[in-house]
Protein backbone atom coordinates (compact mmCIF):
# COMPACT_ATOMS: atom_id res chain seq x y z
CA UNK A 1 0.00 0.00 0.00
CA UNK A 2 2.71 2.47 0.97
CA UNK A 3 4.60 1.41 -2.12
CA UNK A 4 1.64 2.33 -4.34
CA UNK A 5 1.22 5.70 -2.60
CA UNK A 6 4.94 6.43 -2.88
CA UNK A 7 4.92 5.55 -6.56
CA UNK A 8 1.84 7.69 -7.18
CA UNK A 9 3.29 10.72 -5.41
CA UNK A 10 6.58 10.19 -7.22
CA UNK A 11 4.71 10.27 -10.54
CA UNK A 12 2.78 13.37 -9.48
CA UNK A 13 5.91 15.23 -8.39
CA UNK A 14 7.72 14.36 -11.59
CA UNK A 15 4.77 15.51 -13.69
CA UNK A 16 4.78 18.77 -11.73
CA UNK A 17 8.51 19.21 -12.29
CA UNK A 18 8.12 18.51 -15.99
CA UNK A 19 5.33 21.07 -16.34
CA UNK A 20 7.23 23.64 -14.31
CA UNK A 21 10.35 23.27 -16.39
CA UNK A 22 8.43 23.37 -19.66
CA UNK A 23 6.78 26.60 -18.50
CA UNK A 24 10.18 28.02 -17.62
CA UNK A 25 11.58 27.04 -21.01
CA UNK A 26 8.54 28.72 -22.53
CA UNK A 27 9.09 32.05 -20.79
CA UNK A 28 12.75 31.90 -21.68
CA UNK A 29 12.60 30.83 -25.32
CA UNK A 30 9.52 32.52 -26.79
CA UNK A 31 10.33 35.81 -28.42
CA UNK A 32 7.15 37.70 -27.68
CA UNK A 33 5.48 38.76 -24.45
CA UNK A 34 2.02 37.27 -24.98
CA UNK A 35 3.33 33.85 -25.93
CA UNK A 36 5.51 33.93 -22.82
CA UNK A 37 2.49 34.67 -20.62
CA UNK A 38 0.66 31.86 -22.35
CA UNK A 39 3.45 29.39 -21.63
CA UNK A 40 3.75 30.47 -18.01
CA UNK A 41 0.08 30.67 -17.06
CA UNK A 42 -1.06 27.46 -18.78
CA UNK A 43 1.57 25.27 -17.19
CA UNK A 44 1.48 27.00 -13.82
CA UNK A 45 -1.86 25.78 -12.51
CA UNK A 46 -1.34 22.15 -13.41
CA UNK A 47 2.22 22.20 -12.10
CA UNK A 48 0.96 23.47 -8.75
CA UNK A 49 -1.76 20.83 -8.74
CA UNK A 50 0.60 17.93 -9.43
CA UNK A 51 3.27 18.92 -6.95
CA UNK A 52 0.76 19.61 -4.19
CA UNK A 53 -1.07 16.36 -5.00
CA UNK A 54 2.19 14.50 -4.62
CA UNK A 55 2.74 16.13 -1.23
CA UNK A 56 -0.84 15.46 -0.07
CA UNK A 57 -0.40 11.78 -0.90
CA UNK A 58 2.68 11.76 1.30
CA UNK A 59 1.18 13.55 4.26
CA UNK A 60 -2.11 11.67 4.42
CA UNK A 61 -5.17 12.98 6.20
CA UNK A 62 -3.67 15.70 8.45
CA UNK A 63 -3.74 19.45 9.04
CA UNK A 64 -0.80 19.74 6.67
CA UNK A 65 -2.92 18.31 3.84
CA UNK A 66 -5.66 20.82 4.56
CA UNK A 67 -3.13 23.64 4.33
CA UNK A 68 -1.72 22.21 1.11
CA UNK A 69 -5.20 22.05 -0.40
CA UNK A 70 -5.78 25.64 0.72
CA UNK A 71 -2.58 26.68 -0.99
CA UNK A 72 -3.69 24.94 -4.20
CA UNK A 73 -7.08 26.65 -4.11
CA UNK A 74 -5.51 30.05 -3.48
CA UNK A 75 -2.96 29.61 -6.25
CA UNK A 76 -5.61 28.38 -8.64
CA UNK A 77 -7.66 31.48 -7.93
CA UNK A 78 -4.90 34.05 -7.86
CA UNK A 79 -2.53 32.87 -10.54
CA UNK A 80 -4.97 33.06 -13.49
CA UNK A 81 -6.35 36.36 -12.19
CA UNK A 82 -2.84 37.77 -11.98
CA UNK A 83 -2.11 36.59 -15.53
CA UNK A 84 -5.39 38.09 -16.71
CA UNK A 85 -4.63 41.43 -15.05
CA UNK A 86 -1.10 41.36 -16.44
CA UNK A 87 -2.21 40.80 -20.04
CA UNK A 88 -5.02 43.27 -19.67
CA UNK A 89 -2.83 46.10 -18.47
CA UNK A 90 -0.14 45.25 -21.03
CA UNK A 91 -2.75 45.48 -23.78
CA UNK A 92 -4.27 48.68 -22.42
CA UNK A 93 -0.95 50.47 -22.15
CA UNK A 94 -0.26 49.81 -25.79
CA UNK A 95 1.84 46.65 -25.99
CA UNK A 96 0.36 45.06 -29.10
CA UNK A 97 0.69 41.35 -29.72
CA UNK A 98 2.52 40.28 -32.82
CA UNK A 99 -0.26 38.39 -34.50
CA UNK A 100 1.59 37.11 -37.51
CA UNK A 101 5.18 37.32 -38.58
CA UNK A 102 5.47 37.92 -42.28
CA UNK A 103 8.12 36.01 -44.17
CA UNK A 104 10.17 39.13 -44.75
CA UNK A 105 10.29 39.98 -41.05
CA UNK A 106 11.19 36.50 -39.97
CA UNK A 107 13.92 36.42 -42.57
CA UNK A 108 15.18 39.72 -41.24
CA UNK A 109 15.10 38.43 -37.71
CA UNK A 110 16.95 35.33 -38.78
CA UNK A 111 19.73 37.44 -40.21
CA UNK A 112 20.16 39.80 -37.31
Amino acid at each position, binding site marked *: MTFIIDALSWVCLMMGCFLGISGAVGIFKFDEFYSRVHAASVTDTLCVFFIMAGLVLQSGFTLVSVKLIFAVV*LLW*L*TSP*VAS*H*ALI*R*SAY*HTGLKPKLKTSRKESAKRGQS
Partner: protein
Amino acid sequence: MSSINLLIDIVLLTMLVFTTIAIVRSRSLFAIVMLSGIYSLLSANIFIILDAVDVAFTEAAVGAGISTVLMLATIGITGYEQKKRRTISWIAPMVVVVITGAVLVYGTLDMPAFTDPSAPIHQHVAPRYINDSPTEVGIPNMVTSVLASYRGYDTMGEVIVVFAAMIGVFSLIGIREKKSEPIHAEPPARPILQVMAKFMIPFIILFALYVQFHGDFGPGGGFQAGVIFSVAIILYTLTFSQQDAMKLVPPWVLKRLASIGVLIYGGTGVVSMLKGGNFLDYSVLAHDPIHGQHYGILIIEFGVGLTVACAMMLIFFAFISRGDKNP
Protein backbone atom coordinates in the same frame (compact mmCIF):
# COMPACT_ATOMS: atom_id res chain seq x y z
CA MET B 1 23.32 20.02 7.31
CA SER B 2 23.31 17.29 4.71
CA SER B 3 25.00 17.85 1.40
CA ILE B 4 21.73 18.29 -0.53
CA ASN B 5 20.69 21.10 1.83
CA LEU B 6 24.10 22.66 1.43
CA LEU B 7 23.76 22.42 -2.34
CA ILE B 8 20.35 24.15 -2.24
CA ASP B 9 21.81 26.79 0.08
CA ILE B 10 24.68 27.48 -2.30
CA VAL B 11 22.45 27.62 -5.37
CA LEU B 12 20.07 30.09 -3.72
CA LEU B 13 22.90 32.27 -2.44
CA THR B 14 24.42 32.34 -5.91
CA MET B 15 21.08 33.42 -7.38
CA LEU B 16 21.00 36.14 -4.73
CA VAL B 17 24.44 37.33 -5.82
CA PHE B 18 23.31 37.54 -9.45
CA THR B 19 20.15 39.40 -8.47
CA THR B 20 22.23 41.89 -6.51
CA ILE B 21 24.54 42.45 -9.46
CA ALA B 22 21.51 43.06 -11.66
CA ILE B 23 20.08 45.53 -9.14
CA VAL B 24 23.35 47.44 -8.89
CA ARG B 25 23.80 47.60 -12.66
CA SER B 26 20.21 48.40 -13.62
CA ARG B 27 19.21 51.97 -14.48
CA SER B 28 15.47 51.54 -14.69
CA LEU B 29 13.97 52.06 -11.26
CA PHE B 30 11.03 49.87 -12.13
CA ALA B 31 13.35 46.98 -12.92
CA ILE B 32 15.09 47.63 -9.62
CA VAL B 33 11.82 47.33 -7.70
CA MET B 34 10.92 44.11 -9.51
CA LEU B 35 14.35 42.66 -8.81
CA SER B 36 14.05 43.71 -5.17
CA GLY B 37 10.86 41.64 -5.04
CA ILE B 38 12.80 38.63 -6.32
CA TYR B 39 15.61 39.44 -3.89
CA SER B 40 13.16 39.31 -1.02
CA LEU B 41 11.67 36.00 -2.21
CA LEU B 42 15.14 34.51 -2.49
CA SER B 43 16.21 35.69 0.92
CA ALA B 44 13.03 34.24 2.45
CA ASN B 45 13.89 30.88 0.86
CA ILE B 46 17.37 31.10 2.34
CA PHE B 47 15.92 31.91 5.76
CA ILE B 48 13.81 28.76 5.54
CA ILE B 49 16.82 26.66 4.63
CA LEU B 50 18.67 28.12 7.60
CA ASP B 51 15.74 27.10 9.88
CA ALA B 52 14.53 30.63 10.56
CA VAL B 53 10.86 30.03 9.80
CA ASP B 54 9.61 33.04 11.74
CA VAL B 55 12.02 35.33 9.96
CA ALA B 56 11.01 33.91 6.59
CA PHE B 57 7.40 34.53 7.54
CA THR B 58 8.09 38.17 8.30
CA GLU B 59 10.18 38.64 5.18
CA ALA B 60 7.36 37.05 3.16
CA ALA B 61 4.77 39.48 4.44
CA VAL B 62 6.99 42.56 4.42
CA GLY B 63 9.20 42.08 1.39
CA ALA B 64 6.67 40.88 -1.15
CA GLY B 65 3.80 43.04 0.04
CA ILE B 66 4.44 46.33 1.82
CA SER B 67 7.94 47.11 0.60
CA THR B 68 7.08 46.75 -3.10
CA VAL B 69 3.95 48.84 -2.70
CA LEU B 70 5.72 51.69 -0.90
CA MET B 71 8.63 51.73 -3.36
CA LEU B 72 6.24 51.87 -6.29
CA ALA B 73 4.21 54.65 -4.70
CA THR B 74 7.39 56.71 -4.32
CA ILE B 75 8.56 55.96 -7.84
CA GLY B 76 5.15 57.00 -9.16
CA ILE B 77 5.81 60.42 -7.61
CA THR B 78 9.48 60.85 -8.45
CA GLY B 79 9.57 59.36 -11.95
CA TYR B 80 10.73 56.08 -13.38
CA GLU B 81 14.11 56.66 -14.94
CA GLN B 82 17.46 57.66 -13.57
CA LYS B 83 19.28 60.24 -15.57
CA LYS B 84 22.22 59.00 -17.54
CA ARG B 85 24.80 61.43 -16.22
CA ARG B 86 27.20 60.04 -13.64
CA THR B 87 28.65 62.62 -11.35
CA ILE B 88 31.02 60.44 -9.43
CA SER B 89 33.61 58.22 -11.03
CA TRP B 90 33.11 54.59 -10.15
CA ILE B 91 36.78 53.78 -9.69
CA ALA B 92 37.45 55.32 -6.29
CA PRO B 93 34.31 53.85 -4.66
CA MET B 94 35.11 50.48 -6.20
CA VAL B 95 38.60 50.56 -4.68
CA VAL B 96 37.19 51.48 -1.28
CA VAL B 97 34.57 48.75 -1.49
CA VAL B 98 37.00 46.08 -2.65
CA ILE B 99 39.48 46.92 0.13
CA THR B 100 36.74 46.88 2.77
CA GLY B 101 35.43 43.61 1.41
CA ALA B 102 38.88 42.06 1.39
CA VAL B 103 39.40 43.05 5.02
CA LEU B 104 36.05 41.54 5.96
CA VAL B 105 36.80 38.32 4.06
CA TYR B 106 40.09 38.12 5.93
CA GLY B 107 38.07 38.52 9.11
CA THR B 108 35.79 35.60 8.21
CA LEU B 109 38.76 33.22 8.03
CA ASP B 110 38.83 33.22 11.82
CA MET B 111 35.10 32.64 12.16
CA PRO B 112 33.82 29.25 13.25
CA ALA B 113 32.71 27.14 10.31
CA PHE B 114 29.13 27.48 9.11
CA THR B 115 26.73 25.24 11.13
CA ASP B 116 29.42 24.39 13.68
CA PRO B 117 27.51 23.49 16.88
CA SER B 118 30.45 24.47 19.11
CA ALA B 119 30.56 28.07 17.83
CA PRO B 120 30.60 30.69 20.61
CA ILE B 121 27.17 32.01 19.64
CA HIS B 122 25.58 28.70 20.66
CA GLN B 123 27.26 28.55 24.07
CA HIS B 124 25.98 31.50 26.03
CA VAL B 125 22.24 32.15 26.34
CA ALA B 126 20.86 29.95 23.57
CA PRO B 127 20.97 26.69 25.57
CA ARG B 128 18.84 28.30 28.26
CA TYR B 129 16.26 29.38 25.69
CA ILE B 130 16.27 26.04 23.90
CA ASN B 131 16.23 23.75 26.92
CA ASP B 132 14.20 25.69 29.45
CA SER B 133 11.75 27.89 27.55
CA PRO B 134 9.20 25.11 26.83
CA THR B 135 8.93 24.50 30.59
CA GLU B 136 9.51 28.07 31.86
CA VAL B 137 7.23 29.87 29.43
CA GLY B 138 5.21 26.90 28.35
CA ILE B 139 4.86 27.46 24.62
CA PRO B 140 6.58 25.41 21.94
CA ASN B 141 7.70 28.26 19.68
CA MET B 142 10.97 29.38 21.23
CA VAL B 143 11.17 32.42 19.00
CA THR B 144 7.88 33.73 20.35
CA SER B 145 8.86 33.05 23.95
CA VAL B 146 12.19 34.82 23.56
CA LEU B 147 10.57 37.67 21.63
CA ALA B 148 7.69 38.29 23.97
CA SER B 149 8.93 37.12 27.34
CA TYR B 150 12.70 36.88 27.77
CA ARG B 151 13.43 39.88 25.60
CA GLY B 152 10.08 41.61 26.00
CA TYR B 153 11.68 44.93 26.85
CA ASP B 154 13.65 44.85 23.61
CA THR B 155 10.55 44.08 21.56
CA MET B 156 8.72 46.94 23.20
CA GLY B 157 11.46 49.21 21.92
CA GLU B 158 10.98 47.83 18.42
CA VAL B 159 7.24 48.46 18.53
CA ILE B 160 7.90 52.01 19.63
CA VAL B 161 10.33 52.44 16.74
CA VAL B 162 7.59 51.37 14.31
CA PHE B 163 5.20 53.79 15.99
CA ALA B 164 7.76 56.59 15.85
CA ALA B 165 8.44 55.91 12.18
CA MET B 166 4.72 56.25 11.54
CA ILE B 167 4.69 59.59 13.36
CA GLY B 168 7.72 60.63 11.32
CA VAL B 169 6.02 59.76 8.04
CA PHE B 170 3.00 61.73 9.15
CA SER B 171 4.97 64.79 10.07
CA LEU B 172 6.66 64.64 6.64
CA ILE B 173 3.72 63.69 4.44
CA GLY B 174 0.28 63.66 6.00
CA ILE B 175 -2.75 62.08 4.37
CA ARG B 176 -4.09 64.55 1.85
CA GLU B 177 -7.82 64.76 1.44
CA LYS B 178 -8.64 64.76 -2.23
CA LYS B 179 -10.18 68.05 -3.32
CA SER B 180 -10.21 67.70 -7.07
CA GLU B 181 -10.47 64.70 -9.30
CA PRO B 182 -7.12 63.35 -10.44
CA ILE B 183 -6.03 64.67 -13.80
CA HIS B 184 -5.46 61.37 -15.51
CA ALA B 185 -8.42 59.23 -16.52
CA GLU B 186 -9.34 56.42 -14.17
CA PRO B 187 -8.38 53.06 -15.56
CA PRO B 188 -11.37 51.10 -16.79
CA ALA B 189 -13.37 49.21 -14.17
CA ARG B 190 -12.22 45.65 -13.72
CA PRO B 191 -14.91 43.33 -12.52
CA ILE B 192 -12.74 40.20 -12.34
CA LEU B 193 -10.24 41.83 -10.03
CA GLN B 194 -12.91 43.35 -7.83
CA VAL B 195 -14.80 40.09 -7.42
CA MET B 196 -11.55 38.32 -6.73
CA ALA B 197 -10.46 40.92 -4.19
CA LYS B 198 -13.81 40.71 -2.41
CA PHE B 199 -13.31 36.98 -2.21
CA MET B 200 -9.69 37.18 -1.04
CA ILE B 201 -9.89 39.91 1.59
CA PRO B 202 -11.84 37.88 4.19
CA PHE B 203 -9.37 35.05 3.70
CA ILE B 204 -6.42 37.32 4.27
CA ILE B 205 -7.98 38.82 7.40
CA LEU B 206 -8.88 35.39 8.74
CA PHE B 207 -5.36 34.23 8.04
CA ALA B 208 -3.94 37.27 9.81
CA LEU B 209 -5.99 36.39 12.89
CA TYR B 210 -4.81 32.79 12.69
CA VAL B 211 -1.19 33.95 12.49
CA GLN B 212 -1.76 36.32 15.41
CA PHE B 213 -3.13 33.71 17.77
CA HIS B 214 -1.26 30.67 16.51
CA GLY B 215 2.10 32.36 17.00
CA ASP B 216 2.67 30.43 20.22
CA PHE B 217 2.62 27.08 18.47
CA GLY B 218 3.88 27.71 14.98
CA PRO B 219 5.65 30.45 13.07
CA GLY B 220 3.84 33.72 13.44
CA GLY B 221 2.99 36.41 15.93
CA GLY B 222 2.01 40.03 16.20
CA PHE B 223 4.50 41.51 13.74
CA GLN B 224 3.58 39.13 10.93
CA ALA B 225 -0.14 39.28 11.62
CA GLY B 226 -0.13 43.06 11.62
CA VAL B 227 1.60 43.22 8.27
CA ILE B 228 -0.72 40.60 6.74
CA PHE B 229 -3.78 42.43 8.02
CA SER B 230 -2.61 45.69 6.51
CA VAL B 231 -2.00 43.89 3.21
CA ALA B 232 -5.71 43.02 3.13
CA ILE B 233 -6.61 46.69 3.37
CA ILE B 234 -3.97 47.53 0.77
CA LEU B 235 -5.59 45.04 -1.62
CA TYR B 236 -8.94 46.70 -0.97
CA THR B 237 -7.49 50.15 -1.65
CA LEU B 238 -5.86 48.99 -4.85
CA THR B 239 -8.91 47.33 -6.34
CA PHE B 240 -11.45 49.90 -5.19
CA SER B 241 -10.33 53.38 -4.25
CA GLN B 242 -8.68 55.21 -1.42
CA GLN B 243 -11.91 56.97 -0.44
CA ASP B 244 -13.65 53.61 -0.05
CA ALA B 245 -10.79 52.25 2.03
CA MET B 246 -10.66 55.33 4.25
CA LYS B 247 -14.39 55.00 4.81
CA LEU B 248 -13.81 51.41 5.87
CA VAL B 249 -10.90 52.16 8.21
CA PRO B 250 -10.88 55.90 8.92
CA PRO B 251 -7.37 57.26 9.59
CA TRP B 252 -8.39 58.92 12.85
CA VAL B 253 -9.45 55.52 14.19
CA LEU B 254 -6.20 53.96 13.01
CA LYS B 255 -4.13 56.64 14.71
CA ARG B 256 -5.84 56.00 18.02
CA LEU B 257 -5.61 52.23 17.63
CA ALA B 258 -1.87 52.43 16.88
CA SER B 259 -1.32 54.35 20.10
CA ILE B 260 -3.56 51.94 22.00
CA GLY B 261 -1.40 49.03 20.78
CA VAL B 262 1.72 50.59 22.30
CA LEU B 263 -0.24 51.39 25.46
CA ILE B 264 -1.40 47.78 25.76
CA TYR B 265 2.21 46.64 25.61
CA GLY B 266 3.47 49.15 28.12
CA GLY B 267 0.36 48.74 30.27
CA THR B 268 0.98 45.01 30.60
CA GLY B 269 4.40 45.84 31.98
CA VAL B 270 2.93 48.32 34.43
CA VAL B 271 0.27 45.83 35.55
CA SER B 272 2.93 43.22 36.20
CA MET B 273 4.83 45.81 38.26
CA LEU B 274 1.69 46.65 40.24
CA LYS B 275 1.18 42.97 40.91
CA GLY B 276 4.61 42.81 42.49
CA GLY B 277 6.79 41.51 39.70
CA ASN B 278 9.33 43.18 37.47
CA PHE B 279 8.41 45.23 34.41
CA LEU B 280 7.02 42.82 31.77
CA ASP B 281 7.36 39.83 34.09
CA TYR B 282 4.18 37.97 33.18
CA SER B 283 4.52 35.23 35.78
CA VAL B 284 2.61 37.31 38.32
CA LEU B 285 -0.37 37.94 36.03
CA ALA B 286 -2.10 34.70 37.03
CA HIS B 287 -1.88 32.30 39.95
CA ASP B 288 0.15 29.87 37.91
CA PRO B 289 3.36 31.36 36.39
CA ILE B 290 2.91 29.35 33.18
CA HIS B 291 -0.64 30.67 32.76
CA GLY B 292 0.62 34.15 33.52
CA GLN B 293 3.25 33.87 30.84
CA HIS B 294 0.64 32.63 28.41
CA TYR B 295 -1.75 35.52 29.08
CA GLY B 296 1.06 38.06 28.99
CA ILE B 297 2.35 36.84 25.64
CA LEU B 298 -1.13 36.80 24.11
CA ILE B 299 -1.84 40.34 25.32
CA ILE B 300 1.41 41.91 24.20
CA GLU B 301 1.33 40.10 20.86
CA PHE B 302 -2.11 41.62 20.38
CA GLY B 303 -0.68 45.06 21.15
CA VAL B 304 2.18 44.50 18.70
CA GLY B 305 -0.21 43.34 15.98
CA LEU B 306 -2.51 46.32 16.50
CA THR B 307 0.31 48.86 16.32
CA VAL B 308 2.04 47.29 13.34
CA ALA B 309 -1.18 46.86 11.34
CA CYS B 310 -2.37 50.42 11.97
CA ALA B 311 1.07 51.94 11.36
CA MET B 312 1.46 50.10 8.04
CA MET B 313 -2.01 51.09 6.87
CA LEU B 314 -1.47 54.73 7.79
CA ILE B 315 1.92 54.85 6.08
CA PHE B 316 0.37 53.31 2.98
CA PHE B 317 -2.49 55.83 2.97
CA ALA B 318 -0.05 58.71 3.34
CA PHE B 319 2.03 57.51 0.40
CA ILE B 320 -0.85 56.78 -1.90
CA SER B 321 -2.62 60.07 -1.25
CA ARG B 322 0.51 61.91 -2.40
CA GLY B 323 0.72 59.74 -5.48
CA ASP B 324 -2.77 60.73 -6.58
CA LYS B 325 -1.95 64.38 -6.24
CA ASN B 326 1.17 64.33 -8.39
CA PRO B 327 0.60 62.09 -11.37
